[in-house]
């Protein structure tokens, strides 16, 4: 197995290492690893370089890397690295390392939110003794030993020291330091006590005593549960969580993807060595375990299921129930996936039907023509009335479909843009509507939604209507030119030009900030970043067009390509409690503890969830309607516009439809048009999400206009959007 294990920080500096075999020269390993990363054509998690095999995992902000020379069982090593990383995190969470760090840094500690805890180089450095001890325990001669946190925490403890300032990375100092800290600990050693809650940390009396008990448990059959656990109140919490991935084609009215990824998470606070037997609705399990015969067709079947190591695997098929001795504290009992085809029995929980309509309205008083975009959305829910969907969030993309026009010359002129100078109008009885300029979306937020909603023509109870005013692209350019002349700036200029420009700058800097190629190649979670670099390298000889652009633009293009794919998708997220989508249920739960015979309290909870971006509705042509014809366009202003264009004889085509192929964008990106001495390119207008840039919070606020639409029927009564942020931005730019 592995010859050595290394922990590196983000910049590939060695933090700590342990050699298990003596078949390598440890001093050169990290340098070779860097070399291997730099030379590999595709940076995969397994690298072969000059006879060295590197297997690594980047986790949070550290990299755990192992070296080996033989044809070893790589799957085992990879799973082991994952376990080890998780183990470290568990240690740091349970023993409050993150908490005290954050307190020291003056950050607010969110209660029990592991998501905010990040393992980084500093934490490893500060807790090197723990890491060394773990290295000793978890691997012996490169063979994985005990990796179960529940057991390990009983005898490798973290004595988090307050005086970490006095710490030094130096090994020798470390030794003395370790010694002094131990002496300190000795002086106030505490009395043994059994812990009463999972988070409680306990110190122990003599290490010999506890260690001998450990040497026993680690070789017993049940390696995941220490003996002698006692709780006053015996409870077990069983949570059924289902995460849905769903895609629906509104054009063909078909379910394209319907994927349930479920898991049963438990928290066990039970005494002794209880054996639990969990009976689920029978048909699900039996169907999975029996061969494909006629009766199982058309029924819901697990496509896959896997169990925690505590589950007695051989009993499932025969007894039709899951029996297990739970580890103490939290664990995932089982995971399953269900892929339901389009014809299968499950109906989509919620259906969203938007329709986009572009029309022309003439105001009687003025002769000016106005183009408008109206988006109407109706909802349908397919679950029992007694349940309630919470935190429903429907995100609609703001698409102005390009109006088809046969003459390509006129195509430019008839491209419509949303006119943000005029405030949009929203109307709904349910929840509120928010315009998100940054993602160019409208979000309809509904706090709670009942089951069994049927779409109806007459009632507008479960509907939402919003209206935007449009302008032609050329009229926009014209006003832009005018405003520049007068030294004014309106919202459209701000949105279409200024903000994009700022974003681009930020990105450009971000892209250039990491000149070190190794650095950005290394981690896969920066994969988009990485591949952008890769692109760059390859593109250089090929395309001078790309070469002439700053690196940041390339990053942009990459992000954009990701984003533009989602452009014609309506995204929905929600939570639904008290039921599972698959229909999985607990039939019974038996808790059997041979000695203690305690009374126990099982708690079961069901949750169906869909995160943003997982529940999608694909818009089709039938969702778009346009009553406009070519005659509707006022083409008299063409000549003036032509003059504007003469500044730079090539004006860019702004294509807002989602179907722009990336290759076209590359070309279009070259066509520029100037505003205030800056050259801007419309192709860059599709904004990527903030989360993908390292943009500070403050920058985004300017781009977001939020408006809570009151529950009023009357379109006329909707208040104007007040936007202070924008005014600020105005003054700043002037």
């Amino acid at each position, binding site marked *: 197995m592995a010859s050595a294990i290394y922990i590196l920080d983000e910049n590939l500096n060695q933090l700590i290492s342990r050699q298990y075999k003596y078949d390598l020269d440890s001093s050169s390993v990290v340098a070779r690893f860097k070399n291997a990363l730099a030379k590999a054509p595709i940076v995969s998690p397994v690298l072969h370089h000059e006879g060295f095999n590197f297997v690594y995992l980047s986790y949070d902000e550290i990299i755990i890397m192992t070296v080996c020379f033989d044809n070893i069982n790589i799957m085992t090593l990879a799973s082991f690295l994952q376990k080890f990383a998780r183990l470290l995190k568990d240690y740091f969470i349970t023993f409050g390392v993150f908490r005290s760090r954050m307190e020291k840094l003056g950050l607010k500690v969110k209660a029990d939110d592991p998501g905010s805890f990040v393992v980084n180089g500093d934490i490893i450095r500060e807790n090197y003794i723990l890491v060394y001890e773990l290295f000793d325990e978890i691997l012996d001669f490169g063979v994985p030993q005990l*990796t179960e946190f529940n057991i390990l925490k009983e005898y490798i403890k973290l004595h988090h020291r307050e005086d970490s300032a006095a710490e030094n990375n130096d090994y020798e100092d470390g*030794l003395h330091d370790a010694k002094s800290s131990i002496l300190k600990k000795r002086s106030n050693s505490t009395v043994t006590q059994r812990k009463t809650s999972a988070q409680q940390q306990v110190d122990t009396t003599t290490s010999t005593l506890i260690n001998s008990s450990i040497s026993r448990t680690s070789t017993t059959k049940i390696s995941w549960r220490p003996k002698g656990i006692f709780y006053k109140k015996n409870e077990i919490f069983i949570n059924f969580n289902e995460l849905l991935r769903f895609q629906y084609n509104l054009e063909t009215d078909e379910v394209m993807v319907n994927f349930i990824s479920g898991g049963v998470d438990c928290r066990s606070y039970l005494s002794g060595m209880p054996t639990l037997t969990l009976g689920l609705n029978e048909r699900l399990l039996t169907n999975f375990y029996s061969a494909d015969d006629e009766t199982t067709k058309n029924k819901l079947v697990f496509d896959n299921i896997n169990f925690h190591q505590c589950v007695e695997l051989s009993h499932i098929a025969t007894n039709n129930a899951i029996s297990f001795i739970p580890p103490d504290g939290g664990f995932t009992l089982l995971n399953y996936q269900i892929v339901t085809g389009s014809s299968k029995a499950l109906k989509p929980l919620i259906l969203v039907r938007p329709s986009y309509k572009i029309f022309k309205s003439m105001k009687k008083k003025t002769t000016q023509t106005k183009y408008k975009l109206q988006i109407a959305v109706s909802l349908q829910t397919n679950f029992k009335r007694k349940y309630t969907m919470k935190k429903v969030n429907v995100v609609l993309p703001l698409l102005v479909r390009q109006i088809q026009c046969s003459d390509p010359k006129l195509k430019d002129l008839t491209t419509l843009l949303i006119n943000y100078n005029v405030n949009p109008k929203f109307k709904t009885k349910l929840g509120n509507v928010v315009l998100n300029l940054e993602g160019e979306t409208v979000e309809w937020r509904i706090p709670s939604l009942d089951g069994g909603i049927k779409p109806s023509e007459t009632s507008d109870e479960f509907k939402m209507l919003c209206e935007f005013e449009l302008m032609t692209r050329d009229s926009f350019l014209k006003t832009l030119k005018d405003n520049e002349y007068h030294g004014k700036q309106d919202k459209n200029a701000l949105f279409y030009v200024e903000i994009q420009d700022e974003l681009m700058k930020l990105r450009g800097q971000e892209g250039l900030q990491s000149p070190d190629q190794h650095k950005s190649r290394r981690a896969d979670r920066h994969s988009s970043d990485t591949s952008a670099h890769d692109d760059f390298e390859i593109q250089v000889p090929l395309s001078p067009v790309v070469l002439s652009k700053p690196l940041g633009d390339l990053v942009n293009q990459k992000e954009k390509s990701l984003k533009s794919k989602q452009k014609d998708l309506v995204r929905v997220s929600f939570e639904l409690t008290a039921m599972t989508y698959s229909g999985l249920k607990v039939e019974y739960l038996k808790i059997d503890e041979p000695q203690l015979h305690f009374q126990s309290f099982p708690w079961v909870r069901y949750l169906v969830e869909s995160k943003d971006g997982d529940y999608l509705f694909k818009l089709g042509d039938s969702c778009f309607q346009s009553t406009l014809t070519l005659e509707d366009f006022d083409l008299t202003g063409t000549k003036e516009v032509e003059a504007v264009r003469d500044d730079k004889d090539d004006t860019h085509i702004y294509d807002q439809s989602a179907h722009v192929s990336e290759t076209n964008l590359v070309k279009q990106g070259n066509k520029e048009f100037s505003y205030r001495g800056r050259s801007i390119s419309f192709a860059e207008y599709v904004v990527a999400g903030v989360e993908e840039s390292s943009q500070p919070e403050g920058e985004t606020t300017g781009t977001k206009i939020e408006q809570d639409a009151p529950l009023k029927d009357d379109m006329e009564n909707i208040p104007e959007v007040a936007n202070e942020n924008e005014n600020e931005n105005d003054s700043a730019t002037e």
Partner: protein
Amino acid sequence: MVELLPEVVTILLTNRNDLEVKKMCISCLKTYAEVRPHEAAKAIEVFESDLANGSPYVKALALRTISSIPTKEYIERTAAELPVFLGDANPYIRKTAALGVAKLFEKDPRLGQEYGLLEKLNNLLHDKDATVVSSALAALNDIIERSPQLKLSIEYRDAVTLIGLLGTSDEWGQVYILNSLLSFVPSQESEAVEFIEKVMPYLQHSNSSVACNALKVIVYLANYVKHPEDVLPVLPQRISSALTSMLSKSSEIQFLILRNVILLLLTKSKLIQLDVKMFFCQYDDPIYIKDTKLEIIYLLAEKSNVGIVLNELEAYATEIDIQMVRKSIRAIGNLAIKIEETASECVKVLLDLLENDISYIVQETVVVSKNILRRYPNQFEELIESFSKHVDSVEEPEAKSAMIWVLGQRSRNIASSTKMLTAFSEGFLEDPVDVQLSLLTASVKIYSRSRSLDSSQQQGAEELMLKVLKLATEEVNDPDLRERAFFYWRIVQQSASLQEVVDVSLPVISTDSDKLPERILEELELSIGTLGSIYLRPISHVFRLAKPKSLAYSPALQKHIEGKPISSNMERQVSISENVRSTSSNGQSVQPESRPDRRPLIDVEVHHPHTNANGEKLKQVQSLEDEPEGSNIDGSLNAPRDVHTRFPSHSSQSSTKTSSRKSTLGRRASISLLSRKLRNL
């Protein structure tokens, strides 16, 4: 830091009871002992006293330490202590000792041999404690991989015991136990089926490594079943679902499993039913996953799903990531060659892509189209047509030579081919050799055909050819190119045979050529989940010291690959005779108590009188290999087959270069275990 070692040793000597300090000191000792062996040796007494009267944990720690330190004193100490602790009452210590044996063998195998540690380690395989068994297996595995003479073989009954232990061991233990099942050779189909059924539940384990190793065992055993997919209809579904579930794990695991899916598709495609849609790339997949998925999509493509596959590939081909674009275009091209029916659709897609007129798309499309045009000699004129539009944008050498080849080969259909080639010849001297070679061939080819054409064209072709030949013979330094030019020149002079030589119908190309040879696939299949399966290259190429693996023969074995096995029989036989000789010269004979257990494999053959030509041949070799002495003392030919269990027996095989030290190790490391027990029963 090394300078501090004496101080650390002093701390260690004075703080014997402080476990935590001790651990830190040990850490330091392990790192620097090699540099200062004498200083380090002073600390040995601490561990000696710990071993004598510590708690189990302290004992184990001391044992682990002394076995880890690579200096002479410690190695000798370890060898002396290990035999005692291998039989310790505490399983934790036995487990530590088992791994200690592996550590010792890494440093000094001879010493380990002297103390008879291998036999003791073997005894541990019958331990009641699953963790001890798995540690012993891990240790044995390591030792065996290191020494070419040893081999683990497991009999039916022991395999059953091992499977029984699976349920009671922890996840890492399960990995090693599952792995060891590869040393069991089922003698009947029913045994293999039985074991597959028993291992199947472990496909559902949440630890991917357990699931993957279970898969490996199943795939291995399936070689011994005639139609595994008919005997066990649930099998393909279960395997596929296990693969699916591992695909929802972290991207590192995904990558590993995807590489193994490729391997399975190449070898055991009947055992898996995978929907190609599962492998469509997610936009946030890291590049290495996309890359692997692309390969799988290509492998899974067939007539029935080619529509969606092409759609998907076309989408990738317009992505922003150039590497991805190139690979997907390649895949489209290869698809056209792999499945004849889809060729026209693929060509349509390629034509669409050409429309974009993006440089790198054009380059790649030209390259793959060349293969398509070669595969289907008289079709797809439309490709050529659209080529001529893009002649100018062809820049890369590979694309250039592909383009030139097409112009030459299909000159009949391209009116202006001579003109275009002449244009290419302008930059002849600056082009790389590949392009020069193809231009040379193309110009001669055109010339050879030009006789049937009108005079102006004939003249153009001749001019072009003369120009190229002149340049190639006079101004180019590359010997290959020059020689080929001279060669053409001479044939042109004897004009009669020209067309026959340069313009013949080409052999049909196919995609089969990129398949790996069966024997290599077999070896890779036995290496599922290991590094070799990730690289998908012959294991001996990557790991020079790795042992060759192949399916052991048994009457139930379904396939037999013709040809020479990776390690030749000759070599083995030589080594055997050598072995025998060294045995006698040394005067050391096999341990008496193990003798009755060693029975030539010929016995088994009697019970399974199923032979064929190949079997006959193999059988002999096998029996020689496994039993150099070839002595069949008790000759109980009719004994029930349960009785002659030879649990970890070992066969000796060594290379001709085997040193004397190695043959000492190899000589009758007589491993005889359960058999002894069984006899006592």
